[in-house]
């Protein structure tokens, strides 16, 4: 039995297989519409996340399986003080696989220790979000045709943005990756990523404060939202939330084949006028998210 807690829980070759399966599903989704009949996915969401939860549920329904779960801690036994360990032991009796989102970092890992069913981390605090990473990788691979030889820029909240942390981790395993980190001083990446991932893997990276001077170097621009819920202090949030807004002016400086990704929801960091630009692929990315989750559920349930 496998769990997916971190994006690096799959080897590069396993990840390659996962993305290949996802691309096969894209080619002919109907072929997979019944492969999970009789299987149940539990979505254990201790904090609200409509998008990720619906994506998981859509993935399982597309495979012919069914779903059960809760969408906030208030509507779960956590409100009565039940531990993650106890909850997962019980859920293991009801479902065949589960996706867990939790505001505390490491909660899905704790669940995986006590679980009898595969656990997928659907986002834990500011830590990891592996299925978003698989989504991002599938988007890049499908639209760029490769996962190596890329210069990828990350812009916005790089401190609390778990999607950023996960994707940097995953990209560090491919050849010839350059990373450009664009953020205010207060929202730079955590030191464990800088030393434990970028420097440990000899990934060339630079940290800059402005987007305009570097945008023309990028194959992929990964935009993020400054998330209100990650701040203890509202003043800091208000001061930093509008630091980077991607508009048509900035897009004019970028390469013609650059892709703009965003894990969504977008607030105002990408102005709506950019949506019409063919390089803006963040809505396609959401569709890729369903396909890659379908592939992941199949893989963890060992459905051929």
């Amino acid at each position, binding site marked *: 039995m496998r769990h997916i807690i971190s994006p690096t829980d799959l080897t590069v070759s396993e990840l390659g297989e996962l993305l290949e399966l996802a691309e096969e599903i894209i080619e002919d989704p109907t072929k997979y519409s019944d492969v999970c009949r009789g299987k149940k996915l539990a979505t254990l969401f201790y904090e609200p996340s409509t998008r990720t939860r619906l994506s998981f549920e859509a993935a399982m329904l597309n495979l012919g399986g069914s779903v059960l779960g809760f969408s906030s801690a208030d509507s779960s036994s956590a409100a009565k003080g039940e531990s993650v*360990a106890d909850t997962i032991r019980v859920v293991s009796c009801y479902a065949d696989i589960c996706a867990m989102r939790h505001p*505390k*970092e*490491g*909660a899905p890992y704790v669940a995986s220790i006590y679980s009898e069913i595969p656990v997928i981390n659907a986002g834990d605090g500011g830590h990891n979000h592996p299925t978003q990473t698989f989504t991002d990788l599938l988007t890049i691979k499908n639209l760029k045709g490769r996962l190596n030889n890329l210069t990828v820029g990350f812009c916005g909240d790089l401190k609390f943005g778990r999607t950023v942390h996960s994707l940097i981790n995953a990209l560090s395993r491919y050849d010839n990756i350059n990373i450009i980190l664009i953020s205010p001083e207060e929202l730079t990446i955590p030191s464990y990523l800088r030393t434990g991932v970028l420097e440990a893997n000899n990934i060339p990276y630079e940290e800059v404060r402005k987007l305009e001077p570097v945008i023309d170097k990028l194959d992929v621009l990964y935009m993020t939202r400054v998330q209100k819920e990650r701040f203890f202090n509202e003043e800091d949030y208000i001061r930093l939330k509008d630091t980077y807004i991607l508009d048509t002016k900035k897009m004019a400086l970028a390469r013609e084949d650059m892709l703009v990704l965003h894990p969504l929801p977008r607030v105002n960091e990408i102005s709506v006028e950019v949506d019409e630009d063919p390089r803006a692929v963040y809505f396609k990315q959401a569709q890729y998210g369903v396909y890659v989750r379908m592939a992941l559920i199949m893989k963890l349930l060992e459905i051929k």
Partner: protein
Amino acid sequence: MLNIGVLNRGIVIDHIKVGGAMKIYTYLNLENMDCSVAIIKNARSNKMGKKDIIKIEGMLDGINLDMLGVLDHKITINIIDNGVIIEKKNPQLPEYVENILKCKNPRCITSIEQGLPHRFKLIDKENGMYRCVYCEMSSKGEKL
């Protein structure tokens, strides 16, 4: 240097970073042990300038002294018998430690999950750095 009586049989924990002796005293639960203990603070040291030292009369059974390296990885442990040092060692940092360090990340699951052991993995032997296995936040033992 201040002279504390010669130890015939016991343990001397030397080269403790200044201010760290009480932490080790507490970890070893020495206050509840029926033995003589001397804590020397701010002793002069050629190597460190100043250091703390703990002298314990008698042996500590069943205590993994390597664990002290997690609290301060530069300490030296001298085992003394018949008035002579029979063993001198620098603690080897264990690859994993449980319930010795406490994760300081307020967003870590250990901050709310009852009964969950605080488990850390060694990531940098040279600097005595550990990482929480749950949230991956780094900790330097001696700073805790």
